[in-house]
């Protein structure tokens, strides 16, 4: 039998762990071993995992700080809500799975298209200027969605800007958000979406394109000198990330019968960025774990009631201080090295540190 590549083995282990976690969570739901509040968190956890993994592609792998990731999520959420309602109302598609899949895919495609459109000006800039422009785009998307009205009348979809006077039943009504959308998101769908996101991102990272993306991150000039088309590869990471965020957004939107554009504020982009940074920049697994823990954490801190967000903030600061403390850092590196030496793997030190 041909020996599999190490990255393939790692990827298969990743999918396996996610599957096991899903089975455990699902059986806990079936046995009633989970509190209602925690059960309600299951789909948001899936959404945030996909958001964090996709943002990590831009921040960690491509090395550009994006502060507008929630914008793509909101495009996906609104597209998903409109598409699924339209399929039900105009096309009479009763099957929820078909509607959910169509909604997710169309949400992803529209968000990806927006990503491509935004990527053209954004990726010309560097560093903090790029960050502020992504922030600006996130806010622009939110403001525009705040002014859009969609309605469905006899199978015909109507759109208007800044005025609710359109025939039929409103699906999206400006600042009041979506109206009476059928909630068709399911936890298994979230699980499948996580697998898709992991599959896409892990395969991209370990491909020729992924190496080109990381080369442009590590040294743009050297990569360009080697003939790497930096803009093309940065764009590839950006659009893929937007596409996945759009799918996650569609899943998120279809989990609520009503939501507003205000849900996808700057704060949401920051929340996802916190997952990425706490999980370890460029570490896909870290993103998954951080997104899960930090979504559950406010729920676990319920004992502190009023103080829980305060405690959350303190935990966040302390974790950042601890993980960046030189003493603790060197301790972790030493521990890692001793473990690796036991395994007989002698790896060059510091190669993965950034």
């Amino acid at each position, binding site marked *: 039998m041909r020996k599999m590549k190490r990255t393939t083995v790692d990827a298969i282990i990743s999918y396996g762990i996610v599957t096991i976690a899903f089975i455990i969570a699902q059986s806990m739901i079936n046995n009633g071993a989970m509190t209602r509040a925690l059960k309600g968190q299951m789909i948001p956890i899936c959404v945030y995992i996909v958001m964090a993994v996709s943002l990590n592609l831009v*921040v960690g792998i491509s090395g550009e*700080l994006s502060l507008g990731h929630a914008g793509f999520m909101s495009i996906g959420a609104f597209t998903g809500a409109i598409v699924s309602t339209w399929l039900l109302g105009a096309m009479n598609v009763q099957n929820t799975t078909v509607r959910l899949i169509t909604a997710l895919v169309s949400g992803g495609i529209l968000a990806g298209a927006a990503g491509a459109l935004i990527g053209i*000006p954004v990726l*010309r*800039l*560097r560093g*903090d*200027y790029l*960050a*502020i*422009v992504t*922030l*600006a*785009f996130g*806010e*622009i998307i939110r*403001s*525009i969605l*705040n*002014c859009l009205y969609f309605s469905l009348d006899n199978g015909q979809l109507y759109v208007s800007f*800044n005025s609710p006077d359109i025939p039929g039943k409103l699906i999206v009504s*400006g*600042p009041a958000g979506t109206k009476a959308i059928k909630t068709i998101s399911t936890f298994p769908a979230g699980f499948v979406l996580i697998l898709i996101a992991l599959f896409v991102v892990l395969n991209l990272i370990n491909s020729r394109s992924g190496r080109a993306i990381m080369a442009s991150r590590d040294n743009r*000039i050297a990569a360009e000198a080697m003939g790497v088309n930096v803009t093309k590869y940065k764009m590839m990471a950006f659009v893929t990330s937007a596409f996945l965020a759009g799918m996650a957004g569609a899943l998120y939107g279809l989990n609520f019968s009503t939501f507003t554009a205000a849900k996808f504020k*700057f704060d949401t982009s*920051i929340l996802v*960025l*916190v997952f990425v*940074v*706490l999980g370890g*920049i460029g570490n896909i697994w870290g993103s998954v774990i951080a997104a899960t823990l930090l979504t559950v954490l406010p729920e676990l801190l319920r004992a502190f009631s*009023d*103080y829980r*967000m*305060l405690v*959350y*903030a*303190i935990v*966040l*600061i302390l974790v*950042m*201080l601890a*993980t*960046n*403390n*030189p003493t603790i850092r060197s301790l972790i590196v030493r521990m890692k090295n001793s473990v690796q030496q036991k395994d007989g793997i002698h790896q060059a030190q510091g190669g993965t540190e*950034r």
Partner: protein
Amino acid sequence: MVAFLRYLINGISLGSVYAIIALGYSMVYGIAKMLNFAHGDIIMVGAYIVFCVMVYLSMPPFLAVLAAIVVCTLLGIAIERLAYKPLRQSASLAVLITAIGVSYFLQNAAMLIWGSNPKVFSSVFNVGNLRMLNGELVISSEALLTIAANIIIMIGLTQFTSRTKMGKAMRAVSEDKGAAELMGINVNRTISLTFAIGSALAAIAGALLCSTTNPNLVPTTGSMPGIKAFTAAVFGGIGSIPGAFIGGLLLGVIEIMAKAYISTELSDAIVFAVLIIVLLFKPAGLLGKPVREKV
């Protein structure tokens, strides 16, 4: 025409508040190379202090603003010591997330102390309105105060950074930390001083913001003006004091004009769209120095 003038003055007044906040942002960025996302929340704390001193202690507004400046300065120094200083050698993203943590902390602490109900902020400076053009053009005293405060602060800061020893030290540290240290400059103290000045400006901005455009004070009051001021700082060229001044004024005027003539809902989108267009043509902001890349 009168309406246009009125909008222009409102815009300049709002822009002056942005400019004062942006100055703090810009100075901290210039010296510590970090986006201090907690800056907006220091504005909020400053406004709450002014409110408390005026309402609960019934002190005159002047003393209230002074108290807010003192509290915010100490708060700024404390935040820098406890949260940012240990991370000085770390990656900039780690510092950014810590700043976000500080921002959450301040907002939630304010929520616990003062509650989520809006506090109605009474103006710190109300001596009637200035009437011009046969009483058609009314300019509030707060607007005039804000504009005057902005100009005084801007001139004061440029003089401070170009004439005084401490100011020169600040410029030296922002240019090259290592070389500044070799020249005998106490880098840590200089950075603390920058945070202190930035936070004091934030306190003034908080009092002015709540006196002019935002009379309902809630724990999240500072976040949107904070983001706008950050935008203004980038707009003018981050790290540059005149840049923050011009960026803030332009942003305020554009916002008010967009609200008046185009659409209230879209005003934020227009402000950010202008920012993007400016950055496309001048990637380092209006007054920013383009950085040459060396291989």
